């Protein structure tokens, strides 16, 4: 291994490590800056003194976020949305993926069903027509408007289907001989085996529901029904109004925080849940990629 010890190689390694380190920092430092801004005094932030460590440490931006009620209200809606939405997604995906993992000899019309679902991946009805349907179904302003239109994520369903196809057929056959019905087989035998795949698509759903904002803006008339990301989206434009609405003495408030510290605090709070499940995300997203590319 003389090669590894050559000067050129060492030089390369030095450069390589530096480059990788800098690039990695580039991906993280903005968040560190955000965190530092959120804990800094407004004067220091306006003066551009804050880099990666809070200046004039204060938690008032966080207190403001938590006392207003709007933030917590939208957080609660997001939590409900993620919980209900993910469960609905998982149930529908499993119910759909299982029959579709069979060949068309076993499930007549299997390929027609498949086409039926796949078309929705290729084509959509667009903004106004989709809105009209949500109105006609009476879901406007209800949390179900954020859940039902995307109740069956087709791509994730296909991942599950491919996973099911990869399981040895004998598992099912022996149970069939014992007289178990399709539903029993699915729940008792296949579901436990599906766990890793379910974790993957479940995390897809969690992240998807947590991060989506546009449907909230369109389908929720009352601002008080906005999920967290929709609420944050409106704050990008109008944080100042929020501060005025707070009913506190505006000057006092301005002395402690400003638009930048206040917004930074709320953005950071919204990023925390993703950071918390990040280790799982990393693991299962990667394996999901592998699952997804299993050939049919």
């Amino acid at each position, binding site marked *: 291994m003389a090669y590894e010890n050559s000067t050129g190689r060492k030089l390369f390694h030095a450069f390589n490590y530096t480059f990788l380190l800098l690039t990695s920092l580039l991906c993280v430092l903005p968040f560190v800056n955000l965190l530092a801004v959120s804990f800094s005094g407004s004067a220091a932030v306006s003066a551009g003194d804050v880099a990666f460590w809070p200046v004039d440490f204060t938690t008032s931006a966080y207190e403001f976020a938590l006392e207003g009620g709007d933030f917590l209200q939208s957080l609660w809606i997001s939590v409900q949305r993620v919980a209900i939405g993910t469960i609905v997604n998982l149930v529908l995906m499993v119910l759909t993926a299982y029959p579709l993992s069979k060949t068309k000899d076993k499930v007549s019309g299997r390929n027609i069903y498949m086409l039926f679902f796949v078309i929705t991946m290729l084509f959509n009805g*667009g903004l106004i027509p989709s809105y009209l349907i949500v109105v006609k179904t009476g879901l406007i302003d209800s949390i179900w408007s954020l859940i039902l239109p995307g109740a069956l994520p087709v791509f994730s369903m296909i991942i599950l289907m491919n996973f099911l196809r990869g399981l040895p057929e004998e598992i099912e056959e022996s149970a069939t001989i014992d007289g178990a019905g399709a539903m029993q087989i699915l729940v008792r035998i296949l579901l436990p085996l599906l766990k890793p795949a379910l974790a993957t698509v479940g995390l897809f759903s969690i992240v998807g529901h947590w*991060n989506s904002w546009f449907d909230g803006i369109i389908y929720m008339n009352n601002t008080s029904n906005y999920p967290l990301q929709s609420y944050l989206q409106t704050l990008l434009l109008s944080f100042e109004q929020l501060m005025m609405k707070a009913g506190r003495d505006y000057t006092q408030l301005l002395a402690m925080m400003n638009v930048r510290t206040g917004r930074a605090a709320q953005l950071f709070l919204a990023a925390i849940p993703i950071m918390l499940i990040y280790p799982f995300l990393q693991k299962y997203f990667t394996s999901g990629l592998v699952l997804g590319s299993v050939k049919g």
Partner: protein
Amino acid sequence: MLAKLKRQKSYHLMLVPGVILTFIFSYLPFYGLIIAFQDYNPGMGFQSPWAGMENFQHVFNQPNFLRTIWNTLYMSFFKIALGIVVPVFFALLLNEVARSLFKRTFQTLVYIPNFLSWVIMAGILIDILGSDGFVNTLLGVFGIEPVSFLGSPSIFPWTMIVTDVWKGFGFGTVVYLAALTSIDPGLYEAALIDGANRWKQTIYITLPLLAPTIVLMSVLSLGNVLNAGFDQIFNLYSPVVYETGDIIDTYVYRLGIQQAQYSIATAVGLFKSVVSCIMVALSYVLANKVAGYRIF
């Protein structure tokens, strides 16, 4: 025989919920697309008077619309191209790192931005790219005049391209790294004996073996040429950068919702859907032909 029929029946029953929901929320909006060919009058609903191709003609005569097509293609081309080059490059460098602790750390750090929503990312970018934000403060240290990253029409598209690559390259890196680790180490050993240095090994072994994955990822992103990133641009643009930053999706949003041009917005949306659909179908056919990749 009877058991078999019963089994068939339960398979179909399992498919019922998914079929119904998909029908309501994905297929019924297709019917709503007829308003693209009507002079939509909300009072009359889908019985509005027919307008034939008038809406399409109107919009294709708008210089603003042609501009959005160009902007969309321009930004998505560079996003796709750099979205492949950068992670391949990064994965190759990362693959040179021997210590797995470092390797994992770098990988973890660059993967983080991928999971946060564009709302949060936009909030961070607005803060750090502003005139008194972190980046301009930093530039000021080196005596560089503040750059208007989000307010200058000539810079804005590149701000979008770079930040999009920045947010997404961690994902690509993980994909390519997975492909790299599956390369048989025996090949490198053999090359070393033949006297090939690391550079030559990369050219003659690594890249050719990585090629199928690269081709696959490129082909799959074909379907996105008309999606230049609504979530990103909507949250970061302003009228002053419409000239270079307005894309089809943001144009549809403004037309359909802010200006209440329901029919024209739906027509533009339909046009985009049809083109996208062809591109996606094409990309799957290509992916199958070139890389043997099939999703179903």
